[in-house]
């Protein structure tokens, strides 16, 4: 099991959530680690899913509150 990191981008709008996710995943995570991105910006959920799938990272979304999601990106 890899390590878990949390990225709180609540209240931030595009492109900040995706940008910070990219930076964290590519620079700080090792293969198998998971980044838990918490966002309330629907568009960002889409962006992060698209980017993760494009780069082969495993991605899963759970709704943690009304209109608030945790996107779990596990690095390839």
């Amino acid at each position: 099991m890899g390590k878990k990191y949390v990225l709180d981008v609540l209240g931030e709008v595009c492109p900040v959530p995706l940008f910070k996710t990219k930076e964290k995943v590519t620079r700080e995570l090792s293969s198998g680690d998971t980044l838990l991105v918490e966002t309330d910006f629907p568009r960002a959920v889409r962006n992060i899913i698209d980017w993760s799938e494009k780069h082969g990272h495993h991605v899963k979304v759970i709704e943690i509150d009304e209109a608030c999601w945790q996107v779990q990106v596990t690095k390839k």
Partner: protein
Amino acid sequence: MRKIIVKLLTSDWPYWVGGVGIAVINIGLLALTGKPWGITTTVTLWGFKLANIIGVRLENVEAFREYLTRLADFNFWYGGNLLNVGLIFGVLVSAIISREFRFKKITGKRQVYLALLGGLLMGYGARLASGCNVGALVGGISSLSFHGWLFLIFALGGAWVGCQIMYVLLRRVM
């Protein structure tokens, strides 16, 4: 049937559906009213009214002279006002239906200042260009005016430069 409607309302539509939708509605609007869709000219009239409430008479400012005839016609039922109120109301309803509505947390003073500064620049730019992405870009290009294409070139360039600046700043605060 109910399932299909829920799916339609809550799923992500591709960009081209939105584009075609905007085109169809804009054509209808142009045919009915003789004017293409615009947002910021009416927002300027809102500015006049707000300024009047706090006792500032923008009517006397030379640069705002061109708005005086529109200002005389302005009331709730003014076309541009109905469009803007309808836009905000429509977005609100759409967000509630797709369960995306939420009062967002303000992340700090920096966000407040940046939002105010961004709004100011957007408003100033929209007046200099006589329109925003909607009035100058969508309205301009669809009415075969050259200024829409010029707007597109410079808006893309500006957005690119803005992104580069933002990425540098974001890397610094991370």
